[in-house]
């Protein structure tokens, strides 16, 4: 018996595959805009509530230009964390429906499957982040840093989103459970938020919190955004924080891609 030998059919290149995967998820997002809109409800409530309840804090010199202006970069990064917690659920849905099996038995590269969806998450995050800053401005926050500060805050939000989304994808692919994914996210989000300068400047924190916060990537993202928007950045520290965030985001993306490989090996 001779086996059939037919020339290899064409297969899309990595960039084309990644672009197609990105296009798929953007279309899905476009048909579920309510999801993006609903995720903005939380920051609106935070800005209104925190801004009102803690308004008196603004009188302290540590807060500079009022509590709202201090708080909005923190709310921005909190929105990134809460939205990022769901990042892996697209894969859980694909695994449940069978679309993942279809993708993995097609010539699509696993890294293209992950990177395509990762880019969609970052793009959606970018839109949400810009809207949160807009809502913050409506709530009374001031951004003396201008357009440059605005872009820097968005860049910091994107790096933090990369780190958190990558980790969320990895956890989803390794646990394959929505409950575990949300449970772990909830477990992480609150401590990460409170052990940072999201809501309270370092000067007002106990020593041990301040020590932890200075190594917390959430602090790095918040301080980059805050410093950019207020135009008070220390360039040396800012580069170190941005570099740290970029390294963690890259590591998280690598972990996500490796987790898809681990998922395949478990089949």
């Amino acid at each position, binding site marked *: *018996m001779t086996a059939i030998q*037919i020339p290899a059919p064409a297969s899309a290149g990595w960039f084309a595959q990644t672009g197609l995967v990105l296009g798929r998820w953007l279309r899905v997002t476009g048909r579920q805009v309510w999801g993006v809109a609903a995720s903005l409800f939380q920051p609106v409530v935070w800005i209104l509530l925190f801004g009102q309840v803690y308004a008196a804090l603004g009188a302290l010199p540590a807060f500079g230009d009022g509590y709202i202006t201090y708080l909005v970069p923190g709310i921005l990064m909190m929105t990134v964390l809460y939205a990022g917690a769901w990042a892996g659920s697209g894969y859980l849905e694909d695994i449940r429906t069978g679309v993942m099996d279809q993708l993995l038995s097609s010539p699509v590269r696993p890294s293209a499957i992950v990177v395509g969806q990762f880019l969609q998450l970052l793009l959606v995050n970018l839109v949400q982040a810009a809207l949160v800053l807009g809502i913050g401005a409506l709530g009374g926050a001031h951004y003396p840093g201008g357009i440059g500060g605005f872009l820097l805050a968005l860049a910091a939000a994107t790096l933090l989103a990369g780190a958190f989304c990558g980790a969320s994808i990895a956890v989803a692919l390794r646990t394959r459970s929505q409950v575990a994914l949300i449970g772990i996210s909830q477990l992480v989000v609150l401590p990460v938020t409170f052990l940072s300068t999201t809501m309270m400047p370092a000067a007002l924190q106990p020593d041990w919190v301040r020590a932890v916060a200075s190594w917390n990537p959430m602090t790095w993202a918040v301080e980059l955004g805050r410093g950019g928007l207020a135009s008070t950045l220390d360039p040396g520290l800012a580069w170190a924080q941005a570099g740290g965030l970029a390294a963690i985001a890259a590591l998280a993306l690598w972990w996500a891609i490796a987790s898809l490989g681990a998922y395949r090996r478990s089949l």
Partner: protein
Amino acid sequence: MSAAIQAVELVKTYPGGRGRPPVHALDGLSFEVAAGTVFGMLGPNGAGKSTTTKLLTTLAVPSAGTAAVAGRDIVREPAAVRARIGHVSQGSAADPVLTARENLRLAGRLRGMRPTEARQRADSLLEEFGLAEAANRAAGKHSGGMRRRLDVAVALMHRPQVLFLDEPTTGLDPESRSAMWTEIARLAADGGLTVVLTTHYLEEADRLADRLMIVDHGRKVVEGTPAELKAAAGARSLDEVYAHYAGRRFDTEGAAA
């Protein structure tokens, strides 16, 4: 006659976990499928049918043994195998939010088809599978039968040489099942396409398969044409054949009773 699939002594062992012994899903399974034929795989749940499909579609890697699909080695040339096969798994191939047409085009583009080529192929498959009217509706809003036909159409976008159908009619109402049987028979009759059909329905296997293999405990129990199997077992129906070889009845849920 040339072979579309040659499987030699396939073994797949899964770790048992938490001190339990490892699970031998496949225990040295060998078989060949001639190009252009429909090959049916029968067996109770846990017999190794799904594992065989996973290995041959390159979703999983065998613990031992080799196999070639469309002339390509599943371990050494998985990308070449993937480019030549279509796979209708027990789940769905379609994103429920995207329309039937979008799902088809995406599947074609991901496999390297040009936009115009993918558009034309999608349109002709929509027509062929009676999905033209539902082409612009989200796949998640299709009926069970339509959704299954879309899954098959998605798997055929890139004109594969071998099509794996894993329980294609499970969960369908009798009318949709019979429509699907007509589609599968048509695909097989068109020539060129080799179909590997995993099923729980003996009637389905009897009607569609040129050759049948009964699998149990990860091994081949018997193989032959439906007529040969019936003659050898002195049986009138495949149910009796199955009872003869597997030592138990075969119910429609596939569990050994």
